[in-house]
């Protein structure tokens, strides 16, 4: 059983504190995604788990072993790097077998395991090629293959898809997902792309400035964001944040808690209705047609712009005035500290 436990982990580079106390438990076999804006410390946290960065304070357990001072190679983890880090002077076979070789695994065994991993990832035909002769997607697969060969307890992924083009990214995303299903090994995955996080994760950890903002399943984060930052970070396009007073216009039976300062509503939860004094009014300032839906920029009387996802039928004309409404359960209230307001 190899879950991970992070207890009050901290990391300091010289004078700057990059990780400011992270507590987290990761279950065996779980797919956990660290997500957050650049500079939030997610990659540093991953590198601390891998052992490539040492831990300034706190405790890190892999399985039930305290690994703070265990060398990277002896933690039973494998990592897929953003750059793939495929050795340019070695062919695919030797790249994948490198770790086994330095660990003095006999050649026959090495051969067997490399072939096995290559078969899993459909790399058989590429074994004699050098990294420079591979496409981006192939390199990505070799990098994953190299991680598999070592038979690790935990896989670590550091933004593995960010060097691929959009189409390939979607494809590799599903490959990684199915790999997880097949191996059911614990995986920790770092990305700045919230869609990647939503699609892959059993559990998402949102980080900001070296602290955890919220931990939860993708559905929890989408439906019950714990604070304004998470609310706006998860979901695309971004959640609209309006003054709390707008809530009654959006949903007549809404009951904002007393502490509510603002109300958030996702663009896809807004419905267009006839303008009247009982609904939130606005003027269409811009419409962006994307095919499946149209993204409307609606200018509100208070000068704010509100985004609305419209399914495209009976599209209101540019400049026309419309009313906006939403379901009561789709409203999110936040207090003055930007935390989710309690009823």
């Amino acid at each position, binding site marked *: 059983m190899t879950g991970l436990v992070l207890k009050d982990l901290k990391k300091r580079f010289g004078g700057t504190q990059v990780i400011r106390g992270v507590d987290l438990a990761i279950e065996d076999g779980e797919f956990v995604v660290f997500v957050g804006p650049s500079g939030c410390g997610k990659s540093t946290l991953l590198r601390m788990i891998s052992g490539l960065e040492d831990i300034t304070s706190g405790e890190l357990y892999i399985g039930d072993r305290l690994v703070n*001072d265990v060398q990277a190679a002896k933690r039973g983890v494998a990592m897929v790097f953003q750059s793939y880090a495929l050795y340019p002077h070695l062919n695919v076979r030797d790249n994948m077998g490198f770790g086994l070789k330095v660990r003095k695994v006999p050649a026959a065994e090495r051969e067997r395991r490399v072939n096995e991993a290559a078969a899993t990832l459909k790399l058989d035909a590429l074994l004699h090629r050098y990294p420079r002769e591979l496409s981006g997607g192939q390199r990505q697969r070799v990098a994953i293959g190299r991680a598999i060969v070592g038979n690790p307890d935990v896989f670590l992924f550091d933004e593995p898809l960010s060097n691929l083009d959009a189409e390939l990214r979607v494809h590799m995303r599903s490959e990684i997902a199915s790999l997880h299903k097949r191996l059911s090994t614990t995986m920790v995955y770092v990305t700045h792309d919230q869609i990647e996080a939503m699609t892959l994760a059993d559990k998402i950890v949102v980080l900001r400035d070296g602290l955890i903002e919220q931990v939860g399943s993708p559905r929890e984060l989408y439906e019950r964001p714990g604070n304004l930052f998470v609310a706006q970070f998860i979901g695309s396009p971004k959640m609209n944040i309006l003054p709390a007073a707008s809530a009654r216009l959006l949903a007549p039976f809404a009951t904002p808690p007393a502490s509510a300062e603002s109300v958030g509503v996702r663009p896809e939860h807004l419905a267009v209705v006839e303008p009247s004094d009982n609904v939130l009014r606005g003027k269409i300032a811009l419409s962006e047609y994307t095919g499946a839906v149209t993204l409307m920029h609606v200018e509100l009387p208070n000068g704010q712009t509100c985004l609305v996802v419209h399914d495209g039928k009976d599209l209101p004309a540019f400049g026309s005035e419309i009313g906006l409404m939403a379901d009561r359960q789709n409203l999110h209230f936040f207090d003055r500290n930007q935390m989710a307001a309690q009823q």
Partner: protein
Amino acid sequence: MTQRQIRIIYRTCWTLALLIVAIPFVFPFLWMVSAGFKSVTEIFGAPSLIPRVWRFQNFVEVFTYQPFARQYFNSIYIALAVTALTLVISSLAGYALARMRFAGAGLLMLFLVSALMVPEEVTIIPNFFLIKWMGLMDTHWPLILLPTFGPHGVMATFLMRQYFLALPKELEEAGRMDGLSRLGIWWRIALPMSRPALAAVAIITFLFSWNLFLEPLIFLSSLEMFTLPLALSNFTDTYGLPLWNLQLAATTLAVVPILIVYLIAQRQIIESFALSGVKG
């Protein structure tokens, strides 16, 4: 032991080792300055880094023994001339090789490349007769012309070419659309964008000329024409034995100013050499 402690111990060992290795790199400079202030008798006494008696007279005698001020000036102005000339000529040729299409470019490159590695010693004999035939013996002309047009100049040309190649072409094309001539583009767009490369060429060229020895040795005969390295090796008595205290005082005068500039601009200077070496 934690990983952190292991790393600290590891690092300390490395630093100590590096300090020991550094001794023969630093020591000669210290000893040179110290001996420059010693009397002849003290120089051959028990070694100590701090002179017992500071003999400033050495630095006066340096100038009376030979026209050292004049020699110093020679070195400076020749190095400046070589640097200026090399900058202009190498950046012009480098620009053409990087950006202009012309018949024979490939062949020309091949010719120039082959010159890169050839030591001055190979061509110095014919050049001696050439300079003699031109009537330029015991003048500074060969010391300006040979370095500028020799392998060093070719190296500078290639360095400039590499740099121009890496510049975005669009800016120059915009310049062309605005009606600049080729010369105008070179001067107003390419050169201002190439300051790092120009600085690198300037630095290594200046030092190359400043430290040049074989050419001065062969082409110069009168003391007033000497450059610094030649002058330094000339602090000898009538039997050809070195006048140590004078020689070291003079060497100090020649080396220390360059060293000070180096300490101030070490990053830039080191990078210049890295740039000139990488292309090789």
